[in-house]
């Protein structure tokens, strides 16, 4: 199968949003997608982008049954480790089901790794769900270590009303 991996432009936001939603459905969390294509454009293609994105395109004659030629994406951003400095965090990597098994996922991951290398990043981090064996196997095959298993790291979050409460809390001693 022919395909190209390229940097996303703001014109890709509708396609990126479509695939974000498809990935959320796969992760059984479709109701949690709150952003719009316009949010993506403002956040990723403005003056201080919060993320970078790669998209995968296939030729017109190989387009999906619904007529899409953008069939995969990888969304990532830079983070900072106080141990090693700048890192890349791969937030989303997705290929439409019909186009899997053709090396597209591998190519996307490789391209993100090239970018990490260019920026002299010490590591690439990502999160995957416990039950998502196909993804976990894919990353393990590429050398990923499961830090939750080996070092016991847990992800925590404050959001919505817990974040608001914290912001309004009267701190003792201040």
């Amino acid at each position, binding site marked *: 199968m022919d395909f190209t991996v390229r940097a996303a432009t703001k014109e890709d936001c509708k396609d990126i949003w479509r695939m974000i939603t498809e990935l959320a459905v796969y992760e059984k969390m479709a109701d949690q997608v709150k952003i719009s294509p316009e*949010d993506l454009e403002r956040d990723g293609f403005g003056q201080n982008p919060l993320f970078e994105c790669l998209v995968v395109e296939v030729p017109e004659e190989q387009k999906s049954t619904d007529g899409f030629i953008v069939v995969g994406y990888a969304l990532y951003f830079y*983070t900072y480790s106080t141990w090693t400095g700048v890192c890349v965090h791969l937030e989303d990597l997705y290929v439409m089901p019909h186009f899997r098994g053709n090396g597209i996922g591998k190519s996307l991951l490789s391209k993100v790794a090239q970018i990490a290398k260019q920026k002299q990043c010490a590591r690439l981090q990502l999160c995957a769900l416990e039950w998502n064996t196909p993804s976990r196997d894919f990353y393990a095959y590429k050398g990923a270590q499961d830090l939750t298993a080996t070092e016991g790291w847990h992800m925590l979050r404050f959001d919505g009303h817990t974040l608001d409460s914290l912001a309004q809390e009267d*701190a003792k001693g201040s």
Partner: protein
Amino acid sequence: MARFILRKAEPKDVSDILRLIKELAKFEEMEEKVILTEKDLLEDGFGDHPFYHCLVAEVPEDQCSEGSTVIGFAMYYFTYDPWIGKLLYLEDFFVMHQYRGLGIGSHILKVLSETAVKTRCSSMHFIVAENNSKSIEFYKRRGAADLSSEEGWRLFEIDKKDLLKMSSQ
């Protein structure tokens, strides 16, 4: 009641920040993993394109026993969740042992959450080692959700040698 101030870190603070990073890493039993230098911190935090933001907690000179007045810090940056948008990610958060229990940590967390709300972040995320029960309790008391336990999220890392291998494939 301790008197302290919380302020934005300045370039002159990098040596204190590195000292506190190493103290936190020692507490996490990972001291040898800190390879960052003061020069890295200076370039990465105070250059044209900062990769992180930092708050430092300072006590008056008459309250510090070991030379420096900087006794705590929090390092954060902005990340992105494709479902909800901009997030504040708390990378490191540490108060020196002898200054704990005085409300400094609580105040740092409050200022961070105010920052998150003011800068249009939907959420504040961070990771904690599961054996660090004191920290987990501190966060849970304030409403934090443990996404690893509740939703099954696991943290993965691909290190440099495997990145190099992949990037040349």
